[in-house]
């Protein structure tokens, strides 16, 4: 046994001893009170992370049974928060499919309809507003993004002397974001889509720093989506609502494209500038474009990221 009290000090009288003890007690009490006071804001911390979510395994280690439970938890949580029972699926990549996006810069008029269709489809936070697509207004004759205008506001588009370049996740074949993630929370799937497990991301934002296309977005606070705007057709790796403190980005509308539909940005485009499909299918539109059109641009090709997102011109 160790002695619990220090040996008495020969120089201290009983009176000063008790005074010292009193002061020590007061200091300890004051310290604990100050500690409690400084932690007081934590009382507002509501369901930051349920124990079920906290202990949830990594996506690739979830058995089908685990996945069913996870999905029912997510559906429960969404219903509780938004009053709508969503339909959450864990859609897997299809065999023999590799998605590619082609964007016709001759046609794009810079109307930003894709930007908003994307927000509606993918349940992005409306406040603060998170957008996956950024449209750059570029002067003719340059592909240098430094010359692009991000915040153009024109009465009507297109404006003379400019072309418009929408940029979103380029679904790289060598994605720098995947390489840098310290916990494998983001990875490339068989069909070429780089996904994020929102329940695994620790929010270090290293991927955001690594992305040469500024395609990733962080939930700096709890996302806000009006109940009536929630899209209930959801995928685990896709558009289910995100939590505070995790990354998100374009996933080629996984909840649509893995179910045989086109991405929302493509469907809304009024000029048909956006083309999407399976590059492994020689009959697909994207295969035709890659074969027949003459000018392709992989944005920042020199990065070696090898995007699956191609820009082309008609003439």
């Amino acid at each position, binding site marked *: 046994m160790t002695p619990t009290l220090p040996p008495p000090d020969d120089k201290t009288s009983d009176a000063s001893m008790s005074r010292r003890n009193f002061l020590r007690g007061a200091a300890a009490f004051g310290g604990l009170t100050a500690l409690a006071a400084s932690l007081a804001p934590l009382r507002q911390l509501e369901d930051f992370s349920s124990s079920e979510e906290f202990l949830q395994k990594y996506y690739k280690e979830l058995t089908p049974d685990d996945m069913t439970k996870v999905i029912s938890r997510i559906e429960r949580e969404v219903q509780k928060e938004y009053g709508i029972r969503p339909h959450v699926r864990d859609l897997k990549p299809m065999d023999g499919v590799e998605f590619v996006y082609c964007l016709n810069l001759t046609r794009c008029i810079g109307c930003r309809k894709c930007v908003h269709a994307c927000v509606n489809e993918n349940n992005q936070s409306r406040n603060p507003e998170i957008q996956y697509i950024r449209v750059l207004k570029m002067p003719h004759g340059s592909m240098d993004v430094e010359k692009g205008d991000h915040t153009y506001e024109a009465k009507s588009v297109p404006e003379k002397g400019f072309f418009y370049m929408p940029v979103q996740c380029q679904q790289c074949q060598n994605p720098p974001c995947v390489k*840098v993630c310290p916990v494998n929370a983001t990875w490339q799937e068989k069909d070429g889509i780089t996904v994020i497990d929102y329940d695994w991301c620790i929010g*270090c934002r290293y991927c955001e720093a690594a992305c040469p296309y500024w395609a990733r977005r962080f939930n700096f606070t709890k996302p806000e989506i009006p109940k009536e705007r929630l899209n209930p057709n959801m995928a685990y790796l896709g558009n289910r609502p995100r939590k505070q403190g995790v990354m998100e980005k374009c996933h080629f509308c996984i909840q649509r494209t893995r179910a045989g539909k086109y991405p929302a940005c493509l469907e809304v485009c009024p000029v048909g500038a956006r083309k999407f499909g399976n590059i492994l299918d020689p009959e697909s539109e994207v295969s035709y474009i890659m074969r027949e059109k003459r000018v392709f641009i992989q944005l920042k090709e020199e990065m070696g990221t090898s995007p699956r997102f191609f820009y082309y011109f008609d003439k």
Partner: protein
Amino acid sequence: MITAARNYMIFIRRCTRIAFVGDWRYYAWMGLLTVISLLGLNAYAKQLVHGLIVTGMSDEVSWGVYIANFTFLVGVAAAAVMMVIPVYIYDNEELHDLVIFGELLAVAAIIMCLAFVTVDLGRPDRFWHLIPGIGQLNFPRSMLSWDVIVLNGYLLLNVHICGYLLYCRYQNKKPGKWFYIPFVFTAIIWAVSIHTVTAFLYVGLGGRPFWNASIVGPRFLASAFTAGPAIIILALQIIRHYTHYRITDKALLTLRSIVQVSMIINVFLLVCEVFKEFYSGTTHGVSARYLFVGLHGHHALVPWIWTAITLNLVAMVILVLPVSRSLRWLDVACVLSIVGIWIEKGMGLVIPGFIPTPLGAIVEYVPSLNETLVCLGIWAFGLLCYTIFLRMSVPILQGRIAKSNEGQPEIQGDEPETAPVADPLPH
């Protein structure tokens, strides 16, 4: 075995006790640090509730002063080794007993580093995803996973070396070479690695030309080996002033020559970098242009970087001149280098890497009040740790807390070293 455990418990108890006693100056200092730490904790609690939106960070500038301070402190931690090398490789006697103060500084700095990384996380509750075995550490592909390993490893190494040496001194036993010399040499290499790995964290990002330069690694080391020993020079003088622990001027001057050479190399590398960025005139130099002269009317960092450069140059001149053999001038040079390098490594390296964004947008960054309070809190907590470490280790090194005086009246910690140990009294 039980006796050994019991002895160790007594050692721990006596160390803990001494951390809580002292004169009014000690209480005032510790009280101040505690208050600032709690203010920081309070700010962090707010951040946990509302998210990182309470910081000045954005999707455009997604790392800020947290990572900047982290980067600076990794350097401070690494620099402790600059005292170890002279002692163990060149058998420098002057520094021999002082090594432990450097290593304790490293421990405190790593604690601060880990705190800065933690407060930067959006989901700190998921930290366990980083633990190999139960989590998914992306090793060796992610440089951040390397950083997790080297930082924690460095912490353990230094805790072991300091703890072992102090406990041996307490028992008045000669340290067993095999129990620490291999660790010391591992720590030397490890120290270089923690800073190199942290540099590679930035260097490895092809999409950020400002960081994607091989000079970043060497510059990190040069600036670390300037700021780290500079902090140690100041710390040693404070220890000497308040504890009567004998520290010779010669030891301080040995450290001066380290700071001197490192600062010259640091400034040289800065010149190399500035030349490359500006003379070639490529679009890759755009972040550097933002940093040094401003870009399209945005120049938030310009005053910072020129302050840093001025401080570094003045410090270098003082360090090179013989005048810095006088401690007063040496101290001035040390303070200037520490502040200069803190700015250069923090605001000057981390922030401009994000400006402009890879898509060419310019969004500036200013730390918020809440963010600043968190930073101050962590600094105060780190200083609190370092003060406690020194409070425990100095009397042990002086032999005033030793196994031989167990059971005797405890020191109050503020007596001069020469005070005779009181006669044993009946319990």
